[in-house]
């Protein structure tokens, strides 16, 4: 997503300058061990700045007796500037003679002696005119801030620098944008959070910063959170700082820093433009979250009929599939097509599945109502059996697996090069292709042209149809139990129509009222939904319910050790 949330405008910069005032012969050499800066961007468009500085004076240097702090502009009230040295108030706070705009803290008797460490706190309670237009997004205001830096000749050691922006109250966490961290910063991005007042904060931290480099930090936020009039256009070059003239060589380096600052402002614009691009580049590619547990994956080994239950195939079709199955196996044949009546054949094949046995028993009953109830029991038992088999296995992966089998079965049929092979593959894969919701259309499409070699079991299913078929000249190898035949052929379209009609109507000729039949099953097999939001695709239409009794295989036996 293209982002154009910031370019800059301008900048609030703050310089902290330690100067040798007024005795130029003094030599200053110190480290800034820690520097913590909190910048509060207030809802009236002003800013509040808090500093904590831990300074260690070199044993050979002069006492640290004055601290000058540069300010962003002249829109501050000197009476609202406070300082502390080692938690003792600093009495001498006045306009700086050397930094303009800026203030000066005279430590007087509390100057940090050579070799000692002192903690200086500074509060600038209010500075106005510190927000500027965001060039790229007129709805945003931009704020930049550079904490202090010193002339490098005065500084030794590293600085643990932390700068925290507290954005205006009310800004929502997903609204503001940070600007890229300074070059060389350990992280290109600040950490984020909320402060105790619920304000969004950006925190930049570097334990290995130095106190003689200018670091610039920035953020943009919707300007609607501050009065419109407080957001200004960028300050023209040279207008922001007007440092006073240096009075001696001892502060030359510092003053040069100021003299350059008007130019730095321009440079910053370029830096920010680069930062926008680098900001985009630095972001990590997003990988969606993934939670996983150890357990079983695919439940293999289900029959097509069991898979049909799993895939929520309409129950009337499942019933038809069972009928086809027992007929194909030579366990029964149709003696009356409407109403449907079947008879068991002898000898019975050995490998009938429990639901096939149950089905055959149920079909014996000729009373429609009793037969329907018996068949409902068959289906209920079948559904529960599948649920049990699915325990601990992935429903999604298992469904995908059987969908893939179904697709492959179709693929084989559709890619067959001769009518014989096509007929044979269709017969072999019929149980699987029947899982397809588009079974009807695809069957008619596949057999739109050319003859179909009618499978041998078709005669046991549709004896009336087979009588119209012509004997084929070819002899596919399909073999019925105990006999070998030459298969008859039908025009493909006729076969397809018969097949589709059969699949559509067979169940109703078994149970007369399919809807009533289905309801009788699902009211038992579909318990109330699980106690949570459910992303499961188990629905009430398919005669199945959540096989939720997972084995929680990921527990990995961490409950306790056993064995005694």
């Amino acid at each position, binding site marked *: 997503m293209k982002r154009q949330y910031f370019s800059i405008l301008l900048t609030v910069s703050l310089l902290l300058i330690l100067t040798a005032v007024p005795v130029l012969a003094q030599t200053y050499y110190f480290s800034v061990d820690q520097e913590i800066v909190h910048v509060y961007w207030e809802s009236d468009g002003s800013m509040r700045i808090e500093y904590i500085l831990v300074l260690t004076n070199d044993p050979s240097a002069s006492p640290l007796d004055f601290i000058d702090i540069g300010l962003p502009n002249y829109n501050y009230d000197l009476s609202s500037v406070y300082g502390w040295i080692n938690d003792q108030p600093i009495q001498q706070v006045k306009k700086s003679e050397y930094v303009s705009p800026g203030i000066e803290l005279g430590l007087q008797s509390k100057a940090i002696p050579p070799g000692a460490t002192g903690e200086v706190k500074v509060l600038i309670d209010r500075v106005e005119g510190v927000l500027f237009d965001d060039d790229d997004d007129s709805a945003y205001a931009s704020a930049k801030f550079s904490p202090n830096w010193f002339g490098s000749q005065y500084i030794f050691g590293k600085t643990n620098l932390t700068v925290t922006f507290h954005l205006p109250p009310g800004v929502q966490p997903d609204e503001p944008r940070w600007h890229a961290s300074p070059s060389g910063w350990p992280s290109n991005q600040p950490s984020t959070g909320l402060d105790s007042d619920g304000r969004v904060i950006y925190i930049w931290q570097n334990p290995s910063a130095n106190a003689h480099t200018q670091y610039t930090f920035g953020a943009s936020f919707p300007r609607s959170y501050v009065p419109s009039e407080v957001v200004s256009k960028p300050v023209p070059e040279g207008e922001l700082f007007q440092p006073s003239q240096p009075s001696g060589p001892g502060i030359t380096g510092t003053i040069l820093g100021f003299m350059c600052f008007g130019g730095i402002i321009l440079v910053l614009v370029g830096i920010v433009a680069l930062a926008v691009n680098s900001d985009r580049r630095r972001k990590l590619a997003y990988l969606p979250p993934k939670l996983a547990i150890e*357990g*079983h994956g695919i439940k293999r080994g289900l029959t097509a009929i069991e898979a049909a239950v799993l895939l929520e195939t309409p129950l009337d079709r499942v019933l038809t599939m069972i009928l086809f199955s027992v007929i194909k196996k030579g366990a029964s044949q149709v003696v009356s097509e409407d109403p449907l009546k079947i008879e068991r054949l002898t000898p019975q094949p050995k490998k009938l599945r429990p639901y096939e046995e149950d089905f055959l028993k149920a079909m014996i009953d000729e009373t429609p109502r009793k037969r329907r109830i018996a068949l409902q029991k068959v289906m209920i038992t079948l559904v529960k059996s599948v649920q049990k088999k699915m325990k601990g296995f992935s429903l999604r992966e298992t469904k995908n697996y059987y969908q893939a089998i179904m697709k492959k079965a179709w693929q084989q049929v559709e890619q067959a090069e001769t009518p014989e092979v096509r007929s044979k593959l269709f017969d072999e894969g019929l149980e699987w292709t029947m899982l397809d919701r588009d079974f009807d259309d695809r069957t008619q499409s596949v057999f739109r042209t050319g003859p179909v070699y009618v499978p041998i079991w078709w005669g046991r299913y549709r004896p009336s149809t087979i009588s119209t078929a012509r004997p084929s000249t070819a002899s596919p190898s399909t073999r019925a139990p105990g006999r070998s035949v030459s298969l008859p052929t039908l025009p493909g379209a006729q076969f397809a129509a018969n097949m589709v009609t059969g699949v559509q109507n067979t169940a109703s000729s078994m149970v007369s009222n399919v809807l009533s039949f289905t309801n009788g099953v699902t009211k038992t097999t579909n318990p109330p939904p699980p106690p949570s939001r459910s992303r*499961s695709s188990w629905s009430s239409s398919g005669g199945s319910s*959540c096989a939720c009794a997972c*084995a*929680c*295989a990921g527990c990995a036996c961490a409950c306790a050790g056993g*064995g*005694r």
Partner: protein
Amino acid sequence: MRLPSLRSSKPNMDDLTPGIYDYTHIIPGGHARIHLRVEKDGRGLLLINANRAVHLNPTAALMAWMVLEGRSEPEAVAYLRNRYQVASKTAREDFAEVRDDIEQLIKPDGACPIHDLELDLLPPFSETPSAPYRMDLALTYRCNANCPHCYNLRPRNYPEMTTDQWRRVIDQLWEIGIPHICFTGGEPTLREDLGELISHAEAKGQITGLLTNGIRLSERSYVENLLDAGLDHVQITIESHLPEEHDRMVGISGAWDRTVQGIRNVLQYGLFVMTNTTLLAGNTPYIGDTIDFLADLGVPTVGCNALIYSGRGRSVGTGIPEDDLAPALEIVRARSIQHGQRLIWYTPTQYCHFDPVQMQLGVKGCSAARYNMCVEPDGAVIPCQSYYEPVGNILLDSWESIWNHDLSLWLRERRYVPKECNACPMLKECGGGCPLTLRHQPQQAPMNHIPMPETLLET
């Protein structure tokens, strides 16, 4: 005017560094203990009540941490957007989904992670953590029982570490990122500093458990002492509802009375209580009655295991062959269902002989040097509490050297699996059974296949 102290805020987002984080969440009827272990590569492991392990990719680990730290959705979205190339909508939806998943996973009656939450499924034992989920601490090999089938291979007077040394062990385990420790033995209640060590571990954030014969728990004051220390769960061994059979199997006359009293005592408190029973020739014929008896006592969770072929177990001769376990477990399972008890089966078996998955007991495979290990009384680390071959000393050797010791790898990578198992489709779950059984019961050879239901069309 004083400069206000720096304003406190919630943990910085960048505070998510490798290590272990622990949380306690109030849930209906109690609380949930949650540990998030963040690996160096950013991946995470979420352990809920030291029982349910959820593997997280780096994004999920970050989101889980934000959820557990109580970060709001807008905060999380802002952070994600600034860190990743992701649209607000995507970040919001993904975060909300992770939050919902975690909420459900924490709930005792939450949605099924497989079928409702549809979490990705990993093959069993496919993940190699950086450290076990659980460490057993065998405080002592002394024991006030004398089980003829005991798996302990060490002498009873084995050297023991001091309390201070055990504290250091616990510290070390927390540093490694192990959220769950179980005090075992021998009989851990013979260590007078048990409560102190429990307190120490709980203060660090670990879940503590106790594996005991329950004899000392017959003293109510002792139980209260452990509870005050913060003990989370206890497993008590009871071999039979028949006093004489239990006493015979533990080798101590009168032990049954005290063990049962111990069970009664701990059940009065809010501890997670379970029992464990070793199915041997002497007690298995009556195992159904034993389960009934435990239900009458109010035991909510019952555990069973087969003989462990270690120590005296190698020669006691009362073990039940894996092929004969099914009938006994059918009874146990039926009775536990009838009583509403949870059943935990411990023993890794060869699935061609005894398939716990088909028995709906869950996947059971050897988890030594993967999900659990054991520290011996002298600080030696062994792959599990029955596999007496040290792979280092927890106080003297680096964790890396222990975790990646040849024996640790040999077990973790299942190099012990018989070649006959390699073609078996169940190998991932089964893992070839218990390595100790393989070593000491070579006659329990694996079949070269497992009958699988036929499919009508091969893919």
